[in-house]
């Protein structure tokens, strides 16, 4: 009985010490991760600045016209239409298809059904 009590007391003591040691160890680990987080955040900001500068409309226009030899569309080359989701009834059942219209914008290529 006596030995059991001693062993239990020792075990409790060890548990307590182990817990303290773990707290300190994890504490250091947290600090290391925090430093890593800051570094990653810096990298993210840096990339965001770069992305933003590279996608600026001025640069895109310069690259498009200067490097790639693109030109702004002439009048009449871009046709914007009001998209109506359904083909008119008169088209249906008569073997007619609606003209396919593409929008010259960044939107996904819309197609009239």
């Amino acid at each position, binding site marked *: 009985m006596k030995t059991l009590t001693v062993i239990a007391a020792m075990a409790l003591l060890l548990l307590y010490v182990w817990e303290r040691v773990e707290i*300190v160890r994890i504490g250091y680990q947290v*600090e290391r991760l925090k430093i890593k987080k800051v570094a990653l955040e810096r990298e993210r*900001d*840096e990339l965001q600045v770069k992305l933003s*500068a590279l996608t*600026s409309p*001025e640069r895109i226009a310069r690259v498009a016209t200067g490097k790639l030899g693109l030109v702004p569309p002439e009048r009449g080359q871009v046709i914007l239409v009001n998209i109506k989701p359904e083909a008119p009834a008169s088209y249906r059942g008569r073997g*007619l*298809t609606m*003209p396919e219209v593409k929008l010259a914008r960044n939107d996904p290529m819309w197609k009239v059904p």
Partner: protein
Amino acid sequence: MVAAPRRGRCIVVALVLLAGFVVVLFRLFNLQILQAAELTVKADRQHRKAISVQGPRGSIFDRNGKVLAINMDVPSVFGVPASLDDPSGVARHLSPVLHVRAGEIERKLKQERSFVWIARKLDPEQGRRLEHMPLEGIGVVMEGQRFYPKGPLLSHVLGFAGMDSQGLEGIERRYDPYLRGEKQMVVLQRDALGRTVFPKGLHDQTPSTGHNVILTIDEVIQYIAEKELEEAVTATRAKGGIVIVMEPRTGAILAMAVNPRFDPNAVQGISADRWRNRALTDTYEPGSTMKIFVAAAALEEKVMEPSTLVYGENGHMVVAKTVIHDHERMGWMTFAQVVQRSSNIGSVKTATALGEERLYRWLRAFGFGERTEIDLPGEVAGLVKEPRDWGRRSLASIAIGQEIGVTPLQLVTAVAAIANGGWLMKPHTVSEIRDEKGRVVVHVSPQVRRQPISPESVRTLSKILEGVVTHGTGSKAAVPGYRVAGKTGTAQKIDPRTGAYSSNLSVGSFVGYVPAEDPRLAVVVVIDEPQTEAWGGVVAAPVFRRVAEQALQYLGVSSQEPVKLAMTSRSEMARP
């Protein structure tokens, strides 16, 4: 059986050990109980370090979430001269990385000081190269730096922030309380080596980032406006110019271009004259664009109808002993033609029919002489004198846009009121403010200031203004496929040397909206002191057309006119 001497030795050893323990116990008692309070304070002072940390400044985005201003940590290099053995050697190593002459660095390192800045706010790439170069007595710290990745784009609206991250101009200044990061004292727990260890308590102590500001500006429309303005200013060899694009229904500013531009990343050495947002801080005499509002008043007060006949006096009329001219000799014309052909005499006669009090009241109703209350700093109210301060010629002068000072912003806001059916909106550049987690802190809804004019009068006036573009002075503003309504303006400037109207200094402008039947854009173009040609219809109207044409296409506003190109159906395309 243990011998007596051996037993004696055991007792001696036990006593010695006991004495030792007593000493230790006494010391423990002394430290842990008697001096406990005092020592705890001392230990805390050594383990803990309180530092003041400022959270990073929030970012500024355009309406589509494109970054316009952002904070980034960049390296700054300092030296500790006292701990340097070989300043010239260190200087030689640093020189190629920092792009500073070795002699210059050496001079700094030889100063009798404990701390010197060698170079501040460097490129992150330079910081990485310095990391691989461990030099005794040289250190790198990270400092927050404001970046405007798009360079001069929108510079006059964004403004800029100072070295210590405080907003000094534009949005940066007006929204500084939101953008500014939180300042907080942070307590760090340090170990014997000075490393930071886990702080007591689990709560996160990092100070929060400033809020993010989302603008109503669209960077693409802004770019279109700046590009076209720049081209026009260069082509006409003008002093500068302004373009504002507004959404008439909401008062949201889509673009505000001021020329010449500046780069907010490098404001040092640039004069206030250059970065002042002249679209709202400077007034000018608007000239004929003012005739829109004289006409609006006359229609609403039923003084005139579009078909009312007005005699043009053959382009020559005497008012208060001064002569008022028209740019062409006109006889009888309808009231609609007065506006469309921009007749000074017709407009003066309209104003005379209205009378001083009514004209004044109407100008004030459209927001002239008071701030638009836009959310940008530095706005002026402009100048509209009260009738009791008017001279004998004032009524005639004001009718043709002289003796009155307006800002381009006031002008476009007032025209937007005609475009949207009569509502004078409060212009704004910010649509939302969000915290770092993306939660909306402030949401800006369109605000009506008043309704100065009835929808019926607006419809009549709008038809007249469409005529300005289809067969009047503003033909160069016509956007193919869309109905445009607007008005040209050409104003002489007052020569600062003589105090009289100058014969060669002028301001050419155009203000209008498109599509006239359902306006999506209200645009004002002001070209300051063009050298090649003075007329607003020649220098400013083409800028309106080019900006409107590209912006409408970008926004996906479809043309109301039938498309002239033949469209092929799939079956036709399949044929050989």
